[in-house]
């Protein structure tokens, strides 16, 4: 793979002339995403903090999705995952994504359960 790079991002809609301009393009994109995140974090628009989806504020979903977008471009373009064979790509990404999703699911459900126990049961916690 050493010298060939796939130069198109956003599923082929943006194409770059060479690898260096692709790197700067991805940097600009990551910066814009970060600026949006920070701006949302400072402003905290009310319609995003009031609405909830799956027990979480809409704003937090926005943050998490933007983070995953950033993670994708860092892995795909900075770590050259785009240029690797699909076997290597899947071995790394599927393993990580599956195990992390599983871990998150069981730990967050358990944490919420303990919260309910403290709140509703006969455990005195506020003194």
């Amino acid at each position, binding site marked *: 793979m050493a010298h060939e790079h796939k130069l198109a991002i956003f599923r082929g809609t943006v194409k770059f002339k060479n690898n260096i301009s692709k790197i700067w393009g991805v940097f600009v994109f990551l910066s814009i995403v970060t600026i949006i995140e920070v701006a949302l974090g400072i402003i905290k628009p009310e319609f995003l903090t009031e609405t909830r989806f799956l027990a979480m504020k809409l704003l937090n979903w926005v943050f998490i999705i933007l*983070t995953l977008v950033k993670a994708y471009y860092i892995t795909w373009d900075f*770590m050259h995952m785009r240029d690797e064979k699909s076997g290597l790509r899947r071995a790394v990404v599927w393993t990580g994504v599956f195990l992390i999703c599983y871990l998150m699911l069981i730990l*967050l459900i358990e944490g919420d359960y303990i919260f309910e126990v403290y709140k509703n049961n006969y455990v005195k916690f506020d003194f």
Partner: protein
Amino acid sequence: MDTTVEKTGTEGKTWGGGNRPLNASYGKLMMWFFIVSDALTFSGFIAAYGFSRFKFIDAWPIADEVFTHVPFLHGVPAPMYYVAFMTFILIFSSVTMVLAVDAGHKMQQKKVIWYMFFTIIGGAIFVGSQAWEWATFIKGDYGAVETKGGKILQFLDTDGKRVALAEFAEKIPTTRDIHLEQNGVWYEAEPTVTTYSFEEVKAGFLANDNLLVRTQYYNENGKPTVLTREESVAKIMNDGKLVVEGANLKHNEYGHPLFADFFFFITGFHGFHVLTGVLINIIIFFNVVIGTYERRGSYEMVEKVGLYWHFVDLVWVFVFTFFYLV
């Protein structure tokens, strides 16, 4: 002799051996192995943070009120700006790193040297910022009172503005007897002494009628509950126990001590990764300078350390989200 040679019948196939099925060198594959396992370690920490946060979901510190400082701008509340700056530094050092890898592919030694140099500078700025952030967090700003149950009570005036302990605590002259090692069979160093004792804070609080107490529990609007003056006085008199200034592993003036524990642990572990990344980068940098890879004919080593460096950036993206934004 021909009959003793093992033939598997898979020669020439992708996984038949003798080639690189994933088209990556041994070193690069091992770096990916390490990255996957390290990613799982970090996600374990972050998932544990999520667990504790969900467990105390109605009393978790708000990151915006904790990390409000920017160097040289003393007393100006500026939530997030400094962390955003740190994020940019790290992303930018990732860019210079990937440019170094690119220059390495083209065997441009001079460019690799410069890009590696900028990467190292970026990493150093990040670690320095991290240290400053820790120091500010440990020092604290307003101070608070901890109850017998380990809950945090913060002070507000009637306009809802935070009030620092120094603004109202009364000085009560006391003489302290310091226990020295030579006086006891068992000697334990005394815990850190806060600027004001609980008695001084209590006296000052009772003397100032405009002070209210804010608990760490959220009301129905999702904001920390502010007690009335009567409730505040009762809370301080009955439950107050000690003064907390700043944060350490046991006490945290911003709220739940677990918040501080996870902050120190996760950002500390990440900062340690950045530190080792900088050190490895420096080693590779000098190898590039003395021409090791020029003679070897391949700059793959730069690519491998680059993978590690990008991974550190990747982890920071998640730490940033889960510690400062969400």
